[in-house]
């Protein structure tokens, strides 16, 4: 079985599942859940097969003819290389765990079947995105995952907040997608193809001018920034937490938001084609800025899901930083580990919400005793997030930090600051939620939910061993077996010590502040009041957008509506009135002129008769007179006439 050639089966199975669930509805097996899980299991098997073949160097690009338009020919196919093999595995495995988890979480929801249909559709689209070898097919799947995100964020659509959040997510990412499409079109017109391997070959060969490549790269980055919630398009992700928690775990932590990172990694040759070009610097700086902004906001956020949302934005910033400093491999590595521990963290949050019905961390507490499995798995995820060795997060984050240091110490310093903040806010969340005295009733979640959590926790803890500096198996695999890659450098113990030290400092501060009260959070809030206000208002970015874009947009829309109602409708009504007036005129014409003429003829006849009748005097002699006169005239005419 040639898995690589048939890698399209990975997205095909969940798509089939989606169709079946929609057709069968609640009558399907397990109300559709088992179909979804079955689809994902098959995808997982396909992914494993693809991985095995790629490891044996039997991967490659398998493209078929799609359609022709004029002298333009488009192909579509699958690209089975290390990147896509890894992504397929991540999406299908983490996805499968979340699907199983959802069976417990969404139990009893009236729209249960539709939920699994949407989830399967999303999984299909995401895997399609990952194996696509043509930018057009990738864009189609990109839009499809955006659609699924909209459907799933707004799943409980009767809640106005959820509907608003879904709309916001879709519109903001749409903005990025517009840039993405422009980039694709630019590449097509400059290089004549959208088939990625050919595209990169041509770009490297210098077929197109430099500015085309830079512009295309930046436009594609627009799309990536939208999908991966980078500043300034990050505003949709915190609001997207209105959706069910498994959705947040799968889409807004592990996979869809990682699509942006994957896109940049995939099109990396375009970014790197222009040495010392601005494209990579833009990516790196936006990444590190996003990382810091989001991490800073997370330190004062109280909703557990929102903390994790900002954490996701921040970690995506790290991935972009990794890409920006030239190492797509480090970014994908961090993407993989992040998928595991972030999905895990969201699952624990979901477990808490499912058990207590509360999301504000200050209403929770003391859950360590009541929900032990949740607590332990949370700790695994949190430690990975903070970057403690030997957990996975440490390996991947350190990889990025190593690459960053070699490019720019300034970027490295900023990234390190972010590590501190990350450790701090996750400790704060852990302490406030799990330690202390219990404020609410809670019980541990059922096995169907804790099982996947435990599996992901194992992954979060152990994946790091695949990519240590002493044995960079993962990195070598991604880079294509021995190709030149930054991890060929010797392990930098000083660097590792620095990042571990900073992480521990963050944890220590968090623990001391929230578990021991030294220094007291309230006192710190008072003394750093301006900073606190800025952070808790999320730098007022949403308000700025509202003022600068949304309100003018709505005003323009109402202007158009007024124009439509007054001018256009006025014109139409005016035409109607004109028609009525015209018909009145025609009626008047008919009455006055036409009838007048006809009546005139009659009147004339009658008048002539009224005059002419006087000849009838009744006297025979008068008649005789006329007779004689007429005869006389005729004689005259006969005598003198023609």
């Amino acid at each position: 079985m040639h898995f690589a050639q048939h890698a399209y089966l990975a997205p095909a199975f969940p798509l089939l599942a989606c169709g079946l669930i929609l057709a069968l509805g609640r009558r399907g097996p397990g109300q559709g859940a088992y179909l979804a899980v079955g689809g994902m299991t098959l995808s997982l098997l396909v992914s494993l097969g693809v991985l095995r073949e790629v490891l044996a160097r039997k991967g490659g690009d398998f493209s078929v003819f799609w359609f022709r338009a004029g002298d333009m020919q488009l192909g579509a196919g699958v690209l089975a290389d290390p990147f896509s093999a890894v992504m397929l595995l991540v999406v299908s495995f983490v996805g499968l765990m979340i699907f199983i988890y959802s069976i417990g979480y969404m139990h009893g929801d009236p729209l249960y079947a539709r939920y699994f249909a949407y989830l399967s559709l999303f999984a299909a689209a995401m895997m399609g995105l990952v194996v696509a070898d043509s930018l057009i097919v990738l864009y189609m799947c990109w839009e499809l995952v955006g659609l699924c995100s909209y459907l799933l964020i707004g799943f409980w659509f009767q809640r106005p907040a959820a509907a608003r959040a879904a709309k916001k997510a879709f519109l903001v990412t749409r903005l990025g997608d517009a840039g993405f499409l422009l980039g694709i079109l630019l590449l097509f017109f400059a290089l004549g193809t959208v088939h990625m391997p050919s595209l990169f070959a041509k770009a490297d060969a210098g077929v197109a001018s430099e500015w085309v490549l830079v512009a295309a790269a930046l436009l594609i980055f627009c799309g990536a920034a939208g999908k991966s919630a980078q500043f300034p398009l990050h505003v949709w992700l915190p609001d997207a937490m209105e959706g069910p928690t498994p959705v947040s775990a799968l889409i807004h932590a592990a996979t869809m938001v990682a699509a942006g990172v994957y896109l940049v990694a995939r099109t990396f040759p375009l970014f790197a084609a222009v040495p010392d070009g601005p494209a990579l610097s833009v990516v790196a700086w936006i990444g590190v800025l996003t990382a810091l902004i989001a991490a800073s906001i997370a330190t004062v956020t109280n909703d557990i899901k929102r903390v994790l949302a900002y954490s996701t934005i921040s970690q995506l910033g790290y991935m972009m930083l990794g890409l920006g400093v030239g190492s797509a491999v480090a970014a994908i590595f961090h993407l993989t580990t992040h998928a595991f521990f972030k999905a895990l963290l969201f699952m624990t949050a979901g477990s808490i919400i499912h058990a207590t019905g509360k999301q504000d961390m200050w209403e929770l507490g003391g859950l360590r005793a009541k929900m032990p499995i949740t607590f332990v798995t949370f700790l695994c995820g949190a430690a990975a997030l903070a970057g403690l060795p030997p957990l996975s997060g440490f390996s991947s984050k350190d990889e990025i930090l190593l690459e960053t240091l070699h490019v720019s110490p300034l970027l490295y310093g900023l990234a390190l600051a972010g590590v501190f903040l990350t450790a701090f806010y996750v400790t704060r969340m852990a302490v406030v939620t799990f330690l202390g005295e219990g404020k609410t009733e809670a019980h541990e979640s059922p096995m169907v939910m804790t099982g996947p959590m435990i599996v992901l926790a194992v992954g979060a803890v152990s994946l790091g061993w695949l990519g240590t500096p002493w044995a960079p198996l993962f990195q070598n695999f991604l880079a294509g077996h021995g190709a030149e890659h930054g991890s060929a450098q010797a392990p930098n113990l000083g660097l590792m010590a620095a990042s571990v030290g900073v992480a521990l400092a963050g944890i220590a501060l968090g623990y001391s502040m929230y578990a021991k009260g030294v220094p007291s959070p309230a006192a710190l809030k008072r003394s750093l009041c301006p900073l606190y206000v800025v952070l808790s208002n999320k730098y007022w970015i949403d308000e700025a957008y509202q003022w600068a874009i949304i309100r003018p947009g709505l005003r323009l829309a109402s202007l158009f509506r007024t124009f439509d109602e007054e001018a256009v409708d006025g014109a139409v009504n005016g035409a109607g009135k004109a028609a009525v007036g015209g018909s009145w005129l025609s009626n008047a014409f008919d009455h006055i002129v036409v009838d007048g003429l006809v009546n005139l003829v009659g009147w004339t006849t009658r008048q002539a008769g009224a005059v002419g009748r006087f000849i009838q005097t009744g006297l025979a002699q008068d008649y005789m007179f006329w007779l004689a006169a007429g005869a006389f005239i005729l004689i005259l005419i006969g005598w003198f006439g023609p």
Partner: protein
Amino acid sequence: MIGLQHYLILAALLFAVGLYGALTRRNAIGILLSIEIMLNAVNINLVAFSRYQPGAGLGGQVFVVFVITVAACEAAVGLALILCIFRTRRTVEADEVNLLKW
């Protein structure tokens, strides 16, 4: 001496007199008389042409016989009509018989 034109003039004058009488007399019998005068004027014309026109032959005189006959019939019928009118209307004035007036 006395030529054709004298007779024609005479006939014309007679005709004119008869016409004038037919148009102006009130009494219906007067009108009938005037019509007889007109007819006789025509007779004179016809006879004169028969006598004085060379090659006319006796056609004129024959025609006159017909005219006299017709005049007699017509006078009889006319008198009968007047008698009927007199019996119903008690008048023979032409002015008073204007039932067909507008």
